[in-house]
């Protein structure tokens, strides 16, 4: 008894040096590759830099340039639209799929796996699969002709009006399964007694959904929302592989514009400033995610 007591006390007061190293080594790796570069990124956003000569300090010049940059405006609007469309639809469809496939029954594993399989694909492979479908002589146009909608045939990715939406579909195809998994876990956590009680009280299915399912999913919703916003702002691969932001920047996102500005136009200062805009957009989500994590770590 006394031994256990002293063991606990010593654990509280004296941390063995090797344990300190356990934390410090990973922390240093992250500091070197993440925190230090991030600080540099913020600094570079205040400079004009071609990557060869020394960066020249321009203050907020890059940000005032954005105000007059039509491509930036397109990319910003598209990013917000991407967030709403990609985010909203993947949440709605993911929840729908989870509700459809929540009950354990015969064959359910196959259906879940089918919706889930695209999640493991790289976005690049996903994009190329869909590029084949979008071709002028591809499956989508052929199906349209077959069902008598031949007038809708389209060069989906080459048209400024459709390219952006054509890029969202593959991203959704891949994301829905992921969101479904999160919601399936959430639905599993709801106590079935609640539904029993509601049924006894005569609640209909819609009422059960509104008054039990949705409120019970609150914490999952918060996670899905954070995942979606962070994923949206990071979205790069699928656009890059399909259109590189074109045609005429119609499918440009802030992330693709940042990449091409920095590494193709070699305007590293302006690219950093664009990255700061992405960071600012993401910051609210990051902060709220950390607050959630803070409470959890406390537990």
């Amino acid at each position: 008894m006394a031994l256990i007591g002293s063991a606990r006390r010593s654990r509280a007061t004296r941390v063995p040096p090797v344990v300190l190293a356990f934390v410090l080594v990973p922390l240093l790796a992250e500091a070197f590759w993440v925190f230090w570069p991030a600080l540099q990124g913020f600094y570079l956003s205040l400079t004009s830099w071609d990557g060869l000569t020394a960066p020249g300090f321009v203050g907020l010049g890059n940000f005032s340039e954005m105000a007059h940059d039509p491509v930036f405006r397109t990319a910003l609007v598209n990013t917000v639209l991407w967030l709403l469309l990609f985010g909203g639809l993947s949440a709605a469809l993911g929840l729908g799929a989870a509700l459809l496939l929540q009950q354990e029954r015969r064959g359910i594993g196959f259906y879940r796996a089918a919706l889930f399989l695209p999640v493991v694909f790289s976005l690049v492979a996903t994009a190329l699969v869909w590029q084949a479908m979008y071709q002028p002589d591809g499956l989508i146009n052929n199906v349209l002709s077959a069902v008598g909608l031949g007038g809708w045939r389209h060069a989906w990715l080459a048209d400024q009006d459709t390219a952006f939406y054509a890029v969202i579909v593959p991203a959704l195809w891949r994301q829905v399964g992921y969101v479904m998994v999160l919601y399936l876990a959430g639905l599993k956590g709801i106590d079935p007694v609640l539904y029993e009680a509601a049924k006894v009280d005569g609640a209909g299915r819609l009422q059960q959904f509104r008054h039990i399912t949705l409120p019970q999913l609150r914490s999952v919703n918060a996670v899905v929302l954070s995942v979606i916003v962070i994923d949206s702002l990071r979205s790069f691969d699928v656009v890059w592989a399909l259109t590189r932001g074109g045609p005429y920047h119609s499918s440009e996102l802030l992330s693709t514009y940042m990449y091409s500005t920095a590494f193709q136009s070699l305007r590293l200062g302006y690219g950093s400033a664009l990255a700061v805009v992405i960071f600012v957009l993401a910051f609210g989500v990051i902060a709220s995610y950390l607050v959630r994590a803070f409470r959890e770590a406390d537990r």
Partner: protein
Amino acid sequence: MTVTHASAPVGKDSGGDSGTGSAAPRPHPRRPALGSRALRTAGFHLTAGMVSALWLLPIALVLVTSTRTFDDIAAHGVGSLPHSFTLDGFRQAWVDGGQQQALVNSMLVTVPTVLLSLGLASMAAFALSRYDLPLRRALLLLMLGGNLLPPQILLIPVAKLSEVMGIHDQLYALIGVQVGFGVGFYVFVLHGFMRAIPDEIQQAAVIDGASPWQIYRRIIMPLARPALAALSALSFTWIFNDLLWAITVLRTDTRMPITASLIGLQGQYVSMWNVIAAGSVIAAAPTVAVFLRFQRHFVAGLNLGAVK
């Protein structure tokens, strides 16, 4: 719109034969007749089957396209039914398209990155969850915060940093940044998992004279196996599928991983859809294999750190 639409079949399920309903054999006030139940089951399989078919269709299409000849595609279009069968597209992507090398590169990056980042993360998580370090919580959140940063803010400095260190265009640089960027999330998840392990187990080991390293190696790590398996499966796909970091720190084509090589293939074999499709199949095969083999862990991994 979708939500109300989708709520209907669920309502049916919970109304018809919900878990508690069938488990407890007491008479239910509104138990549906046997016929309508069969109808509902049929309706469910019809809906779910159609959705699944729609989801699998692009995958089936790419598999079919990858085995067609170029002449067939040129003559009938990429969206037509196949008129030929050949594995030549795979040979072209594998040999001429350089995907063999690219796949090797991807594995050379992915496997060490997964091992290294999970190794480091488990150590940090062990220290943070099992010892009263000063600033424990702040450190944990700082590390998680680093992972949540949009990578775009890091791209330019990381590219420069690897240049200054002389490892630009080397796979080491990619491993380094992938470990540094990913480790925060793994620490966070593993910390939550290790915190749940009872104190008494560790205390018993301390009394027996076990060192922190022995406790970590012999007690905590084996107990954290489920979380480690889940994170390994998950991080394998993340790192294997990455494009952004790879094209930021690598330059030479022969050093590029499979994702970047696939984009190269797209430029090199314009409208040769059999080769591009074959390349996509090759690029997807390893992660699909991991998924099929570790499906349970993989799905658990997605939920770790998310739904608690």
